[in-house]
């Protein structure tokens, strides 16, 4: 829109350039912009995926080293079964009495299944964490966002009532089951849990439980 008006001298300075408002057809530009906006909106991934941190125990490399002992009364074994089934049994089973294995209890991934079971056993700690969270929300305790996680971790560390959950996966379980169960641990505020390898007698227990249940039309 820059106009250079050269005033010509001598030829009567009264003559002025006529100012016409330039008119541009903007429709193609708008079309193009719409196209670009649509393109960017479709290709942009706005919400970043989230991550869940887990820590594995050390691998026993020294054959003389023994696995850490845990008390059987607090132990809860969860076995991820095939076809999104979930089995559990409390305590420990000795490999010696493989002829007399305890039956597995069956449950599922719903709020009434495993979550209820875990909360029942973890109620002291879960209530402590819940009370703490409530006090933070209502402003009774003033704590920065950064140290909130640390405070909850401390509550979990000093707790000695909750279950020790051992997560074992049968070979037909899938990755989604594994994430689901770890998520359930976080939801219920379980202080101590770890994924461990499934033992051969536990595989046997799963197979017994599988055959005891009415056989469904499965591809296996």
């Amino acid at each position, binding site marked *: 829109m820059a106009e250079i008006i050269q005033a010509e001298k001598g030829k009567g300075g009264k003559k002025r350039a006529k100012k016409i408002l330039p008119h541009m057809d903007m429709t193609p530009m708008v079309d193009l912009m719409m196209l670009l906006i649509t393109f*960017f909106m479709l290709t*942009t991934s706005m919400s970043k995926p*989230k*991550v869940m941190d887990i820590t*594995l125990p050390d691998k026993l490399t020294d054959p003389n080293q023994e696995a850490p002992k845990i008390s059987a009364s607090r132990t809860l074994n969860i076995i991820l079964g095939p076809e999104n089934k979930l089995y559990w049994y409390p305590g420990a089973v000795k490999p010696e009495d493989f002829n007399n294995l305890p039956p597995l209890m069956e449950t599922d991934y719903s*709020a009434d299944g495993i979550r209820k079971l875990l909360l029942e056993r973890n109620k002291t700690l879960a209530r402590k964490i819940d009370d703490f969270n409530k006090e933070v929300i209502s402003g009774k305790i003033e704590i920065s966002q950064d140290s909130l996680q640390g405070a909850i971790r401390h509550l979990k560390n000093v707790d000695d009532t909750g279950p020790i959950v051992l997560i074992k996966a049968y070979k037909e379980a*899938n990755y989604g089951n594994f*994430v689901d169960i770890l998520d359930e641990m976080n*939801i219920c505020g379980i202080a101590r849990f770890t994924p461990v390898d499934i033992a051969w007698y536990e595989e046997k227990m799963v197979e017994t439980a599988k055959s005891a249940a009415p056989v469904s039309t499965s591809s296996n």
Partner: protein
Amino acid sequence: MTPMVDTFAVILIFLMLTATMSQPEPATVDTPFSISEKPTPDFNTMTFLLSPDGKVFMNFDNGPDTLLKYRPKILIEMGKRYGIEFTEAEQREFEKYPSAMGVPIMQIKEFLANRDGNARKEMQVGLPMDSADNQLAMWILCARQVNPNIQAVIKGDSKTKFPVLKKVLDILQEKNVKRFSLITSLEAAKINLEEIQQ
């Protein structure tokens, strides 16, 4: 008309600046859900992509490389171990490649030379990780050597069979990587403590 064009321009500029392109992955993966709210780290990551059919792919610093240019360094390190020399052009190509890789090291030169997307996709057969030729473990070793701060991130499909994950976890554990993250999508969950009290 002019106000509309102005708004469009603003939206367009905003989208262009915030756009993080969703990169095409060699396998489509549906991540499982969890309540975790921690965002995925941008840098210093090695991502293991576990496809539903049991293949394993690996990616470093998702998407574009950072200023420190770890990717070509990792490739050179890997080449040293297998006696392969990579040219400048191949290193650049590896640096630019935006998504996860699952090409056996012997085919990687061919893969980098090939410009055809479909042919490339066909070469992505997953990283070998049997005990005779454990290239996945080698990649982890090289990545950790080049960048000691690297974090392991696992991205799996909810239908991926557990033994695949188990194998990757075992290899990680063997290489002394004990902390790692699983990529999930956010979902809300509620617990009812009152019900338990009764």
